[in-house]
Each structure stands twice: as structure tokens, then as C-alpha cells.
């Protein structure tokens, strides 16, 4: 194995996190002190990673293709279609016609919208307050938040609280119990703590109130963290299944995930009555099921690039610096 660093001292000047400025010599047996992989190792790695990526992507391709394929092709294939020969949107038209799926979709949108807003408000205010070291009660409250990370009250006690508050079978049951994540509070607090004290002191001398400090200084400076935390809350509300299962016995208030369970996982038949249409012939059940799946996946796919851009930066720096 070669032990020479061909580019001399260059790797150290590149700094620990900026790997893009690597010198591009003809032979680079060692980079930043790490020996380069041989051809054999590279081939194996390439194959392993390609298979891993295919295992993630192909199911999505199949689901989207099947939802778009013509009824004839789906029936002929007996279910799953990987390459549609023609495009047929009738499955989407039917699930958007105003029946159970449409309604569940609206409920999920409503819960996600209100929930994320509420969560962000509660998390940032609490995170800010806990970052004010030396203020009355802050140490005790921080301890209460941190200890809550260590245990889970359990299914029955959680149910009893929601029942006692009269939230069963209301949309609030899908929002309030999960509205504050102690972990997110800690992340947001960690960010506020490392804001320069000078800025806050200067504003205070200028007569800013606590609320103004939070609203005019804390929030604007913490946009990247808020974006990540907000997206995580949003995805959490959209995907929430447990709360809905536990607290919503009234099927007319089900969010999308419960409808998905009933008609896709458990395979209950979607009739024209459920869909709120009077069509003589429905597309195959598989097409309808795949269309519902696509509708529930697409919002996550839409926010994913934003999430992705931020999470490495915002989330980890916040959490690690603790």
C-alpha cells in the first residue's frame, strides 16, 4: 500500500469539511490520509449501492405506473404494472370525486396545517424561554423537558388523558397530544443558546421587551432550524397513524392514513358509494389503491428536497452542539 501523500500538504489546507477542493492529480493513492479504494473494492461498492437504491426506487415506480396504467393493462397484469402502455387518470378522478378518500385528504391537510403551525409556535416559544439562562424557573423547566425524553406514559394513560379532556373523536386529538416534541424543543433551544449575547444585550439596552427579543431577533436568526423542525412536524402529522387509530372511532373523521389502512392494507373494497360517484364500472381496485398511495406519498416527496437540503445542516449542528 502506498504511503505517500502525492499532493503534499494540500489536503490539510482543504479543511476538515470541504472535500470538494481536493487536488485532482493523476494518481491519488491517499486523500486526507485515507488510502484510496482499489478497483475491486470500488466495483463491489458500486454494485451494493446500486442494488440498495433500486430497492428503494423501484417500488415507487411500480406504484406510480400502476396508478396511471389503463384498466385493461392492470387487469391483464393481475395487479402490478412496471411500465404503463397508456395513461389513464380515471382512478384519480374517482378518488377525488368527493367520497371517503377526498374527505380524508382534506382532514389530513387540515390537521397537518394547523398542527404544524401550533407545534412551531409552542416549540419556538418554549425553546426560547429555556434558552434564557438564569431566568426564574428555567433550570427546573429544562429538567422537566429533558426527563420527559426518558419515558413514555403508555398507551392506556395517554388514551385516558385525551378522553378526560373530551378530545376523543375530535381533530384536536390528532394535534394536541403530539404538538410539542421535547426533542425538537431541545434542538431549537440549543440554537437559541448559541446566538451571540451581544445582540440580545444591545437590543435590551435599546428597550426591547422579551417578546420583541424573541420575535425580532430570535426567530429571524433561526430560520434554518425552524424550517427543519417545521418540516419534521409536518411530515409527522401527515404520517400519523397511531393517534388516529387510538382516538378516532368515527370513520367520517379519519385522516388519510386510516383510509389507506382500510382500503389498501386490509384490502376493503372501494365501491362507488364510498367514492361518492355513480359510475357503472370502476377501475380495478389495484388502480384505485395505487392512486391513494400516490396521493399520500406525493406531499412527502414534495417537501423532501427542502428537508434534505436542511437536515444535515440545521438539525445536526443544533443537536450536536447541545
Amino acid at each position, binding site marked *: 500500500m502506498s504511503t505517500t501523500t502525492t499532493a503534499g500538504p494540500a489536503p490539510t489546507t482543504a479543511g*476538515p469539511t470541504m472535500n470538494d477542493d481536493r487536488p485532482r492529480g493523476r494518481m491519488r493513492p491517499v486523500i486526507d490520509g*485515507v488510502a484510496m479504494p482499489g478497483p475491486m473494492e470500488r466495483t463491489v461498492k458500486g454494485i451494493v449501492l446500486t442494488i440498495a437504491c433500486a430497492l428503494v426506487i423501484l417500488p415507487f415506480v411500480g*406504484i406510480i405506473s400502476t396508478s396511471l396504467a389503463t384498466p385493461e393493462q392492470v387487469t391483464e397484469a*393481475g395487479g402490478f404494472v*412496471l411500465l404503463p402502455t397508456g395513461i389513464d387518470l380515471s382512478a384519480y378522478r374517482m378518488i377525488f370525486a368527493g367520497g371517503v378518500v377526498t374527505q380524508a385528504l382534506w382532514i389530513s391537510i387540515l390537521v397537518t396545517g394547523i398542527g404544524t403551525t401550533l407545534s412551531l409556535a409552542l416549540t419556538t416559544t418554549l425553546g426560547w*424561554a*429555556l434558552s434564557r439562562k438564569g431566568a426564574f424557573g428555567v433550570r427546573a423547566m429544562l429538567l422537566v423537558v429533558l426527563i420527559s425524553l426518558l419515558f413514555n406514559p403508555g398507551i392506556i394513560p395517554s388514551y*385516558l388523558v385525551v378522553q378526560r379532556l373530551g378530545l376523543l373523536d375530535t381533530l384536536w386529538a390528532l394535534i394536541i397530544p403530539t404538538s410539542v416534541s421535547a426533542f425538537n424543543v431541545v434542538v431549537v433551544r440549543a440554537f437559541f443558546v448559541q446566538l451571540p449575547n451581544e445582540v440580545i444585550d444591545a437590543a435590551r439596552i435599546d428597550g426591547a421587551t422579551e417578546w420583541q427579543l424573541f420575535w425580532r431577533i430570535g426567530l429571524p436568526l433561526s430560520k434554518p432550524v425552524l424550517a427543519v423542525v417545521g418540516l419534521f412536524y409536518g411530515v409527522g402529522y401527515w404520517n400519523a397513524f397511531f393517534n388516529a387509530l387510538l382516538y378516532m372511532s368515527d370513520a367520517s373523521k379519519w385522516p388519510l392514513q386510516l383510509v389507506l*389502512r382500510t382500503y389498501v392494507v386490509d384490502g376493503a373494497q372501494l365501491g362507488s358509494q364510498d367514492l361518492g360517484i355513480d359510475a357503472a364500472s370502476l377501475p380495478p381496485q389495484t388502480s384505485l389503491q395505487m392512486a391513494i398511495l400516490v396521493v399520500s406519498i406525493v406531499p412527502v416527496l414534495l417537501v423532501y428536497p427542502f428537508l434534505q437540503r436542511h437536515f444535515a445542516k440545521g438539525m445536526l449542528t443544533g443537536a450536536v452542539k447541545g
Partner: protein
Amino acid sequence: MPWWRRLARDRAVLLLALPGMAVIVVFQYLALGGNVIAFQDYQPYLGIERSLWVGFENFQILFSGDPEFLAALRNTLVITLLQTVFVFPAPIVLALLLHSLVSNRVRQWVQSILYLPHFLSWVIVVAVFQQILGGAGLINNFLRSHGWQPIDIIGNSDAFYALITSQVIWKDTGWATILFLAVLAGIDKSLYEASAVDGASRWRQTWHITLPGMRPIIIMLLILKLGDSLSVGFEQLILQQQAVGLGVSDVLDTYVYNQGVLGGFWGVAAAVGLVKGAIGLVLVLVANKTAHAFGEEGVYRA
């Protein structure tokens, strides 16, 4: 300064904290009070106030050899063991693999793809697996169209543990690398340089520098896993119980839900949940102490 002065001075801070604290206190701490029904013959129409107290009667289920409870306990432990052995190391291996990629662009693409399943709900993941592996799924249709025997995976209790293990690996391996990658990026580069000068091969570098650098995070995550070892994938399992039956798929959490919320045996379910939670807490504390004894940071230091 007397405390009421400080209280008056910091009232704005406290007001800002109030709503968020209220949610945590009510749903995390006050909720614990609901555990008293473990000592009651709880009837929903009577409520906690008027239900009869029965002492430790509900806890007898833990020792009476009730077959359903024992099955749930056994399944929980088996699944936890499978996850520790097969699911836990997967992201470590994947992170080492990703970290060793030379091209940053390739690495970012692969990461973006492999992180994605983490953001899908369990309902979607289970549905996707059904569509691929089910009786009328992609693989069986392919086998049938080529004249081969279809394979029975979904709803087959013998294949169930393999199925749920692969589901967890599919969903979370990519995402779980994120912490390991952050740690890998933080390992001092000069260690590699020094070892390269001393003639260390890639494997020796991995063994003597990379893996020791990852030890604290691995131990921390193992502790968290141990503390969580009595809670295995409630959503994932409850979704598939109808297809495969309770025999292999009932775990402590689903047992509590099935017996309590669905079956109406509130007291017994609460008793099982309470013991489960208490043991879980003890496990976290013990594991953390153990980590300290081994000279590691652990999750927290009191």
C-alpha cells in the same frame, strides 16, 4: 433577590414557556396518573373516581401463565433480538460504505435516495411490501407468468419475522446512517495521515481509527435501543396482525391496545403497560450506568 422579585422580573419568559410546558406536563407527566387504573376494576362509564379498587389483582396476569400474555412477551423479546442483531449493524456498515465514497456528488445522491423511506408512514411501507411480495404482488405475478410456483410471504406466519425485519431495514437503514456519518466526518484527519505515513492499509485504518471513533455513538445508540427493547414497532405490527394472526405478531404494546382499548380489559392492560414502562425506564438507567462504567459518555450524565 427574593424569588418573587425574580418571578416578577422574568414573567415574560415564563409566559412564553407556559403553553409548551403545559402540553408536556399534561401529556407526559399528568398522563402517568392514568396508571392508577392498573389497580382498579376500571369501567369507562364509571371513570377513575367511581371504579372499584382491586389492589394488585390485575398484575396476576404477569405470573399466571396466561398464554396470550406469554406469547406477546416472547414475540417482543424475539423481535427485539432480531432487530439488535440484523437491523442495528446495517446503518453502521452502510455509513462506512458511504463515507468511503470518493465522489461527494455520488454520495449525496445515494444519501437522498436511501433517506427517503424514513419519511413514509408505516401504513405506506406495509402497503408497498404487500404490493411487491403479496399473493397478487409483483414478484408472485412474475413467477406465475413464467410458470413457477408463487411464494407465500404475506400472511405466512413462518416468514413473518423475516418480513418485518426487512421492512425495518428498508425503511430506516438509510436514515440511521446520518448520525454515524456526522461522527465519521468529525474524526480527526491527522490520525489517518499519521497512520498512512506509518504504512497502515485501509482495513487497518478502519479497524484502528474509524471504528474506535464510532464507539461512543454506537454505545449510545445501543443504550437507547436497550431502553426501548420492550417497545417494538406498534404501528408496523398492528397493521399486519389481521393478515398473519396474533400468534406471532402480538407484542406487549399491541397486547395492551388489543386487551384494553379494543377488548375492554382496561385494568389488566394498564397493569401490563405500567410494568412494561417501569422496566423500560430501569433498562435505560442501568444501561447508562453500564456505559459510564466502561468509560463512555452514555446518553446523559447526572
